[in-house]
């Protein structure tokens, strides 16, 4: 199985790659359109801001390619946000594969932003990506912007308000948390994606 990591400059690329290696998959790191198109699975990691993230995909000439992919695609953290239509972060137009707007966490007393740490996942909709996930299992989040609940939400987490922790629409999947840093829970969800 050919799994590729899209090299869009995210600093978590190494961690995602190691997590896949722990699952026995050696993923190629690439920005080459033909390699990405030919892959069985495509992962878009990402740490950073939406504006520079989209700018990097444009520079690499990968925007239309990403939109045209038909194999299973997984966006992680910022990568999930880039799959959405628009982000409030830098007022950025994103890939538009999941019709949702990424919003900054509202300022509330006692609510620290970024949302950083382990938080529980609640299944909103049964889906093979969530296979084996038990109620209350936690994943590691680090983000200041989030996707509100919408019809593509598979699992939610709560931080002042519920938000989308896992989304899927057709072949496009997203995880707001870092499965590569979410211990056994993360490994289980990554394995589920690899089996899609």
């Amino acid at each position: 199985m050919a799994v590729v990591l899209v090299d869009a400059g995210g600093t978590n690329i190494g961690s995602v790659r190691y997590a896949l290696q722990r699952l026995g998959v050696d993923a190629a790191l690439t920005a080459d359109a033909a390699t990405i198109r030919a892959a069985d699975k495509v992962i878009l990691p990402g740490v950073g801001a939406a504006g520079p993230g989209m700018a990097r995909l444009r520079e690499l000439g990968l925007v239309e390619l990403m939109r045209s992919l038909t194999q299973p695609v997984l966006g992680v953290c910022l990568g999930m946000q880039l799959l959405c239509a628009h982000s409030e972060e830098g007022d950025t137009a994103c890939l538009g594969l999941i019709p949702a707007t990424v919003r900054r966490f509202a300022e509330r007393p006692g609510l620290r932003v970024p949302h950083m740490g382990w938080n529980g996942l609640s299944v909103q909709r049964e889906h093979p990506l969530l296979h084996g996930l038990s109620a209350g299992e936690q994943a590691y989040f680090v983000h200041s912007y989030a996707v509100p609940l919408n019809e593509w939400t598979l699992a939610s987490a709560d931080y002042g308000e519920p938000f989308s922790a896992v989304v899927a629409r057709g072949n496009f999947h997203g995880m707001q948390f870092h499965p590569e840093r979410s211990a056994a829970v993360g490994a289980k969800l990554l394995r589920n994606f690899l089996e899609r």
Partner: protein
Amino acid sequence: MLSRRIIPCLDVRDGLVVKGVRFRDHVVMGDIVDLALRYRDEGADELVFYDITASPEGRSVDRGWVEKVARVIDIPFCVAGGIRSVHDARTVLHAGADKVSVNSPALERPELIAELAAAFGVQCVVVGIDSLCDADGEWRVRQYSGDPSKTRALARRTLDWVAEAQCLGAGEIVLNCMGSDGVRQGYDLEQLGAVRALCHVPLIASGGAGAIEHFRAAFVDADVDGALAASVFHSGAIAIPALKQYLQAQGIAVRIP
């Protein structure tokens, strides 16, 4: 609900984990990867590695062990020590660290915090602060605390530095209360509470953990997001699973893997 984090801190010197008392007299505790794996298995939520001699010696953190840790560890970890530039931080982040923590170099040149936040996002940028109560009752910042012979007391008030660091783009603050570090009498709740009142990003308590009740007090009384400790975990005096069971029974949100 977001869990409060339990964070073992591994002070690294020459590729080995060490621990001193009040930042002095370091003794070797073990191999980095072995200890990292042990804490992952016990249910640590995150790990912090401080290369305690990198800053005083003016050198950057060694990338080799960062990559070794990143390959085997599936929980987040932060690397601190000698990160003086965007280039240094990129090296460490690309080696697999999730966050970088800056301390002495940010005191030399505060704009480093803004540069790191612009390059990687605030979520990658932790500002570590070594703080001590002076004779006049004011908390002030210390620099180069990894080497007692080079440690400097600064005129900068800790509370002012916390406010400035947040403005510049700190995504998390680790407050090392040096007066309580290594003596196991509890976290400095008064100082943590004062910092909490003006800290809008995650705040991590460091220095003084000696008993499980100290963790509860830090979370309940000082409302910190995470509690960091070293010697009590390294020595086995506190086992993380038992600590988390206790905290959960006290009504504190924790992750029990």
